[in-house]
């Protein structure tokens, strides 16, 4: 058993930390206040030549071959600075790129994964619909066969990167009878294709800098060679992608949590009340202790699971556990951080207020906490014991 990060993983962490300190943190408040997607796109342009957008993928697809461990390190460090940036990159790599990596054939990986890994193109993943959130299998977007094409009609909702993406992995219904049992198919859609349109959704509680969009597909023709895997395999690809991306989402919460501890300690040392810095009060110290205890658990389960994944194991249960625990832990941590900051923490001038708003969606997207519990319970019950 070896719990050390490799030298490469440590160097990656140092490098991303430097990158975040210089390129992300200074603009994070502005990204949030101005809903400034452009600033995030600038960050992506700087991250791409460093190889940051292809971390988990093999070198032959333009990646760095650093696996899930490397990818988790990236998202953890990014989230010290800006959750909107982290989510943008997460959707690009962990959802769009990962769907193609897991489900695509060699030609598709060469043509579509490579430009994503090198950052030449931006990716999005379109599963959720107005009537299909937690109940993802209930999707309504239709894909009808027509010669050597499929014709897509329908709407996707709350799609991260939806209106800045060049490549979208779209999940549609090819057989309404079968639904999740072979009726759903994944397609690679180029957003320049006629019949595609995207509308930015601006009014969000948090992640205000990430581009969230509604996507409308109107008689959009996708060539058959853009079917990921095989017709009817879409739901499996969608779920396997989510197993992985739930883990990386959990990794991202670690970075936010650690940053909140740093902010809270700094503030508590500076802030004077009753003639002394508030850090002297046990009430504050206990909150900090609880935050630290949770962070230790978060990083312990996330990196253990990432290691399992890199060993070739499937992680449906573990990924869900990481996502469930970490997203809820972060909400507890950020709540304490705001409490420590008092009135300052309620004011928009302080980053802790942004972290508070950005945290909440972690318990909702990529499967709500309730869906994670369903996944975990199903897996435990299937085996009958732990």
């Amino acid at each position, binding site marked *: 058993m070896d719990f050390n990060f490799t030298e490469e993983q440590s160097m990656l962490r140092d490098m991303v930390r430097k990158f975040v300190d210089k390129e992300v943190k200074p603009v994070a408040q502005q990204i949030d206040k101005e809903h400034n997607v452009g600033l995030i796109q600038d960050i992506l342009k700087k991250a791409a030549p460093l190889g940051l957008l292809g971390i988990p993928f093999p070198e032959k697809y333009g990646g760095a071959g650093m696996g899930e461990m490397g990818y988790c390190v990236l998202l953890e460090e990014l989230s010290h600075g800006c959750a909107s940036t982290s989510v943008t990159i997460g959707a690009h790599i962990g959802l769009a790129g990962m769907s193609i990596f897991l489900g695509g054939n060699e030609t598709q990986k060469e043509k579509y994964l490579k430009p994503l890994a090198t950052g030449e193109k931006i990716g999005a993943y379109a599963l959720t619909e107005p009537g299909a959130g937690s109940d993802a299998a209930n999707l309504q977007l239709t894909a009808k066969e027509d010669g050597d094409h499929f014709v897509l009609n329908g709407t996707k909702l709350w799609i991260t990167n939806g209106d800045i993406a060049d490549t979208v992995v779209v999940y549609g219904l090819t057989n309404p009878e079968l639904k999740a049992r072979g009726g759903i198919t994944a397609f690679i859609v180029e957003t320049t294709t006629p019949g595609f349109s995207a509308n930015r959704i601006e009014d969000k509680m948090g992640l205000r800098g990430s581009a969230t969009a509604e996507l409308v597909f109107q008689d959009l023709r996708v060539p058959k060679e853009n079917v990921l895997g095989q017709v009817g395999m879409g739901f499996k690809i969608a779920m396997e992608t989510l197993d992985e991306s739930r883990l990386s989402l959990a990794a991202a919460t670690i970075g936010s949590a650690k940053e909140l501890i740093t902010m809270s300690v700094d*503030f508590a040392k*500076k*802030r*004077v009340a009753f003639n002394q810095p508030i850090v002297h009060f046990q009430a504050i110290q206990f909150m900090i202790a609880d935050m630290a205890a949770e962070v230790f658990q978060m990083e312990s389960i996330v990196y253990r699971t990432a290691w399992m994944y890199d060993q070739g194991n499937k992680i449906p249960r573990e990924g869900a556990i990481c996502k469930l625990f970490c997203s809820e832990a972060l909400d507890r941590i950020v709540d304490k951080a705001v409490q420590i900051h008092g009135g300052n923490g309620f004011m928009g001038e302080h980053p802790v207020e942004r972290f508070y708003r950005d945290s909440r969606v972690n318990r909702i997207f990529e499967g709500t906490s309730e869906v994670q519990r369903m996944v975990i319970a199903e897996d435990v019950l299937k085996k009958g014991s732990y």
Partner: protein
Amino acid sequence: MTKILVVSERHEAKVKRVTLEALGAAHALSSKEGGQVAALLIGNEVASQADTLSAGGAQKVYLADDPKLALYSSEAYATLVADVAKKMDATLILLGATAMGKDLGPKVAAKLEGAFAGDCTGLALNDEGAFVATRPIYGGKAIATVKCQQAQFQVVTLRPNVFPVHPPAPSAKAEIEKVTTTTDFSLLKAIVKEVLTVVASKVELTEAQIIVSGGRGLKAPENFKLIEELADALGAAVGASRAAVDAGWKPHSYQVGLTGKTVSPLLYIACGISGAIQHQAGMSSSKYIVAINNDPNAPIFKIANYGIVADLFDVVPLLIEEVKKLKAA
């Protein structure tokens, strides 16, 4: 006997204050057990500066006056210093920790196989007669006390504004001895081609007695005008925090702090600067610190002698008025 050689430095045609401070330090050291304080004056048409050195406490002035020495040359200057140090059998060679001193000191020390201690804020003789210097390390986060372990050729550079000058003795007349450079200038491998004036600032930051610095709180580059006006009224130099420099409001030469300049003025006025550790590293040895900031929790207040918690845009214009009034009175 302690024989001390102070390498004089000039700005235009005037001896720099830091040289007088070095003479003051040399005097304090040599008076303890009887010694000799000499100064070395290098340049072109600099002979007239010998009077300032005499008045400042030099008992002897070595004068290297040569058109070839008009511009600084690490090699030529170091050779001269080493020659004179050997000639007078100097125990200690003192320089200001300026751009010149920081370059010349290590060069001379290596030439003489001597000890070197840079940017010192304290210098004394211990009971065994060895020089003990204190110097800030880790950007001022710690202080090292170092001992020079040999009898001669100890090279020390002194941080400006730390050591008191010797009470001026205008009638003192030092013995002047001319020395000549032995450097063959045609063989020099590094030559100063020209000196470009970059900063039009009237007062040099590291040597200024008063500094007014601006930071992020200024909000925009054009607001530095306010800082400059206050500096003008006070006859002060202008500094900037890293935040202001990184934002491109002022060039790096204005930066006070860890990756910028270390200053020790009599008075440091920080306007709209929160006072992060990295800024404090560059200015916390100032004698008096004034903080003007609208955040009462800003760390700068923890080290300031006087603080005003208010908007700098309200405070600074009033301060300019008050200072002008005081100066006029």
